[in-house]
């Protein structure tokens, strides 16, 4: 409790930490939501470009209005949209491809921003806080601004959910039913510029693309549903920025860098260990499946030999059939005994009733699959057997039943052997 108190709760009594927390949460949500669409539409390059290109707008707003949140907002959004328009213009009116024109325009705009900053000594702008972020330095005005931006983004995503979905997934259909992809594109670009404005203070222009891309990508690895991805992405965004904020406070890290590193760490953890598609998870699953395949092959062969070969020689016969070592088979037989699938009265290996059912289930799957591929002419007779050897281990029971029904509950497989019925 003391540790929680000391490291997590105690800082919250400071007003600047409260402000930083609210800023972190809003930016996590705004960027997580907009970033999901940026990722799905494969626009991360333009997201990065926009983040850089808002700089001249920010500086000009300072020149005109001093430190005013409204001016900052307008300046950033205007220069963001101008950049998008310019990129499109260059792209349409020359042979230059989009990624190249993005590269030209955004570096140009960014350089212009830096030049303006260096020339305007009378206006005090802390350039480094725009470049690298300083979440601990956000003002009340900044927070009001990012809260407003967050609500605008949430409202637009809810209200225009279907337009955003259809133009992202199938722009051609969107056009045929009269939904303008251009209008939706510019709406998204405006929202993107806004989320960048919100993120300027805490993460900075250079790293904000990470907040737009990394949480959605992490969420995408965890779910197949757009709505879930949006929510997860916002949550991961919030989590990254809050943890990053604390690291920044306690360890005196640059806030942008620590927020982004937390987000990337979460991404890596999910990438490696996510239950569905994690790299390590898949590795473990593959090893398990190799083991299962061996056990199932041994069951089937034991069933086939049906006590006709005794004791050690059974293991030899199976090892011979499968082309693996005798000791592996011994190990498998032992495991089968542990699972009550096999018993060995008087040195004779016999399947228990349970083991018998298991073997029949495998044979049923195998033969139904062969019948299915022959009927659907997927592959010819010669090749179906090895294929079925693999398939019998992976088909779920539901799928096998479905297969059976679709085939009209056949009695014989293409080789003329009986297909065991389901018990």
């Amino acid at each position, binding site marked *: 409790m003391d540790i929680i108190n000391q490291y997590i709760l105690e800082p919250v009594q400071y007003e600047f930490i409260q402000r930083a927390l609210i800023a972190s949460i809003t930016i996590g949500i705004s960027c997580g939501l907009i970033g999901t669409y940026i990722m*799905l539409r494969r626009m991360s390059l333009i997201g990065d470009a926009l983040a850089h290109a808002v700089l001249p707008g920010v500086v000009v707003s300072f020149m005109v209005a001093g430190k005013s949140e409204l001016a900052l907002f307008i300046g950033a959004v205007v220069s963001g949209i101008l950049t998008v328009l310019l990129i499109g213009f260059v792209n349409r009116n020359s042979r230059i491809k989009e990624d190249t024109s993005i590269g030209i325009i955004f570096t140009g705009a960014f350089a212009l921003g830096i030049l303006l900053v260096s020339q305007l000594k009378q206006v005090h702008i802390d350039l480094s806080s725009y470049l690298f972020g300083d979440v601990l330095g956000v003002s009340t005005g900044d927070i009001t601004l990012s809260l407003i931006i967050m609500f605008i983004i949430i409202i637009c995503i809810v209200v225009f959910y279907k337009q955003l979905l259809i133009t992202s*997934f*199938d722009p*051609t259909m969107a056009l045929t039913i009269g939904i303008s992809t251009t209008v939706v594109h510019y709406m998204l670009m405006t929202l993107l510029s806004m989320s960048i404005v919100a993120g300027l203070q805490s993460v900075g222009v250079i790293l904000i693309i990470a907040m737009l891309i990394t949480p959605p990508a992490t969420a995408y690895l965890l*779910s197949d549903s757009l709505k879930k991805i949006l929510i997860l992405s916002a949550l991961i965004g919030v989590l990254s920025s809050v943890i990053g904020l604390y690291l920044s406070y306690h360890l005196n890290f640059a806030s942008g860098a620590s927020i982004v590193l937390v987000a990337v760490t979460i991404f890596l953890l999910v990438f490696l260990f996510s239950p569905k598609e994690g790299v390590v998870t898949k590795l473990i699953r593959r090893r398990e499946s190799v083991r299962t395949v061996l056990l199932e092959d041994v069951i089937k062969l034991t069933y086939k030999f049906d006590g006709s070969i005794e004791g050690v020689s059974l293991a030899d016969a199976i090892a011979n059939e499968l082309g693996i070592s005798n000791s592996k088979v011994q190990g498998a037989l032992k495991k089968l005994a542990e699972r009550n699938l096999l018993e060995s009265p008087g040195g004779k290996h016999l399947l228990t009733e349970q083991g018998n059912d298991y073997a029949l289930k495998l044979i049923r799957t195998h033969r139904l699959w062969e019948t299915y591929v022959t009927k*659907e002419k997927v592959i010819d007779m010669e090749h179906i057997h090895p294929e079925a050897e693999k398939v019998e281990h992976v088909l779920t029971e539901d799928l096998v039943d479905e297969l059976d029904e679709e085939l009209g509950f056949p009695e014989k497989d293409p080789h003329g052997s009986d297909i065991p019925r389901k018990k």
Partner: protein
Amino acid sequence: MNVITVKNLTISYNKKPAIKGVNLNIASGSVIGIVGPNGAGKSTLLKGILGLLPFDTGEVKIFGKDIEDSRKRISYIPQREQFDWDFPICVEDVVMMGRYAHLPIVGFPKSGDRQIVEEVLKKIEMDKYSKRQIRQLSGGQQQRVFLARALAQESDVYFLDEPFVGVDAKTEKAIFSLMKELKESGKTILVIHHDLGKVLEYFDKLIMVNQTLIAFGDSKEVFTPELINRTYGGKLTILQKTEELIS
């Protein structure tokens, strides 16, 4: 009344005409195949009629109106390769897009829309898979989902771009019987088709195109060796030769 009227339609890419001077009058209640070799402008013609490409010259009317006023009544089924199959969307949500044509700008699907989606999925035997992400379907099932989407739109004209490519026998049959059913209820179906094998079986009428319109008429009348040769033949027409010289 004609469903689709195309007058002197010319569409170019980079100043080279992809289709030139096409005239068509298409009546309702038929299944029409659009055939021609690769690069003949089949897709261009279809997209032109759908108002997805700017015209150089010409005019397209659907139900006597401009395309913009007929959008609710037409649906388009693109080629399968065009999609990002990893997109986080399930079968049901794809089909629901068909209903978007009828929803106001700000408005969510109602229970009536959901009911239509459910019925359509049942009809096309995909109701078991309604929550499944689209990557986890076979090629034929994917094609059926997009058919279902067009059906959910309840339109009067259907445009299909190569629907038979890479589908299994079951889906091919399903698409074919669906086209027949739609035709019998007075709908119009235009299908871009690549393979000449089953042309007579599938289509009542044929649009044979190779930059210009070579022929349009009842399949049995226009699917003749002479016209096929003119559509697919290696020899360039005088028009094409001239264009080669000019460009």
